[in-house]
């Protein structure tokens, strides 16, 4: 049911782990629903220089977390904020329909991390858009 790409990101996830000195953390999901994604970002000059994740969830949740970190690293906040759910799913060469909500969650986590970072620096997303 999963593409080869999903399996690969699931078994050898990129950028996995806590980031001790993160500039912001985007926490989304709820274990009650079976998915919890934490996205840690490190930002310099509005560029995401480092990004990691920790995820409780199914294979799709883990693979989308891994993929979003890969898509994001080195991007400006603005660019990163434009990454959509579809970008994640497409780069994984598709997700089963019933798992599409998992790709939402990873993108939401990234967006939340960015918002949190902006808030810390007294801005909103419109300031950099």
């Amino acid at each position, binding site marked *: 049911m*999963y593409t080869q790409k999903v*399996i690969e990101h*699931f*078994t050898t*996830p990129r950028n*996995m*782990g806590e980031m001790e000195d993160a500039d912001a953390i985007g*926490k*989304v*999901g*709820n*274990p*009650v*629903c*079976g*998915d*919890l*994604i*934490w996205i840690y970002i490190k930002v310099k000059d509005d560029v995401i220089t480092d990004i990691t994740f*920790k*995820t*409780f*969830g*199914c*294979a799709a*949740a*883990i693979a989308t977390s891994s993929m979003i970190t890969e898509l994001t690293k080195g991007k400006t906040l603005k660019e990163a904020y434009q990454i959509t*759910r579809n970008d994640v799913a497409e780069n994984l060469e598709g997700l089963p329909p*019933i798992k599409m*909500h998992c790709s*939402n*969650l990873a993108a*939401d986590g990234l967006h939340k991390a960015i918002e949190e970072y902006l808030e810390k620096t007294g801005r909103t997303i419109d300031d950099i858009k």
Partner: protein
Amino acid sequence: MVEQVNFNHSAGVPIDERVLQAMEPYFRKFYGNPSSVHSAGQQSAKAIENARVQVSQLIAADSKDRIIFTSGATEANNLALQGFAYRHRRNGNHIIISQMEHLSIINTVKFLSKQGFEYNQVKVDQYGVIDTQALQKAITDQTIIISIQHGNKEVGTIQPIAKISKIANDAAIPLHVDAVASAGQIPIDVTKMGISMLSLSSNDLYGPKGVGALFTKRGISIQPILLGGGQEYGIRSGSENVAGIVGMGAAAEIAQQQLEKNATHLRGLRDNLIKGVLNKVDEAYLNGHPKNRLPNNANIRFAFIEGESITLHLSLHGFLVATSSACTSKTLAPSHCLLSMGVSEAEAHGALQLTLGRENTLNQVDRFIEVLPPIITKLRAMSPLSKDVPYDLFEDEEHDHEHSHEHD
């Protein structure tokens, strides 16, 4: 490629070769309609009667009782409850089941509740065992039927049917037992156990899919669901699935003959499996009753991680297992059995459902115990949850995950 090991017999059982061989003549040669006078038809009719005897022997039914062949356990459960409820409506409109029942029972009583019936779902304890006092209290003068399962396929718990049957019989209410998961695993004697109706599935006996049976004790009358040519004592119309019925009969006979041998083998594997996993993995808990459980079932819950990701890793090592995680179900709803047993929704996501089969070996179990712990460790390293960040931190939070889904 790695050896494929099936620890997921709850999702389908391979047919026994002897069963398939018994079926084959009825595909090719004796395909006649059992109602026709010809020899091919007569041969089919005889074969069906033989299968009835084989199935009755598995559950120690009397020759005066009926074995009604159906298309599976779901139909047997529907026929038992709908058929009995409609036929005995005049005597009352109340049905008692438990929280542990299969959806083919729960959804059937829900359906009946739209047709003027009412039902109670008797609660269970932390092991999934029915609260017999609650059962006793649930009985009203409107109660016409009690339906309780024998064994639970998901968590393995075996219900105290003798006690339950005493309560039912004292109140003169017929007891229906869903024995789909227990038949062939542990002995069943419908007469001694005081059972009025009992549902069986062929596939769970290593027979073909698409066949099941409902036992009805002499004197128990039910109304048909499927009307037509009047086959199966007029209670289940439709040209008989002769090969399938023959297969179920053969499977029942083998299951009965090998019951003790298979159960001993499976109990050995199961106990090794449970002990091995619980020894090697921290924060792992057995779901279901520690002693009164089906010989082939181990259900283990792993804290802080989600079941589907465990099963996928295992499958890459060749092990097919199931999870009670909602993430693998069509509805994304968590297991109602675990919830009834007091397992939280969050914890339920981490449950592995291991159902063994006759063909499994101790070797496979040993290998599983080697393979599993590193997977758990790896997934826990990935999880934001831990003893320091437990589930209940999140209990009151807004479910923004679902929100974002809705706004999509």
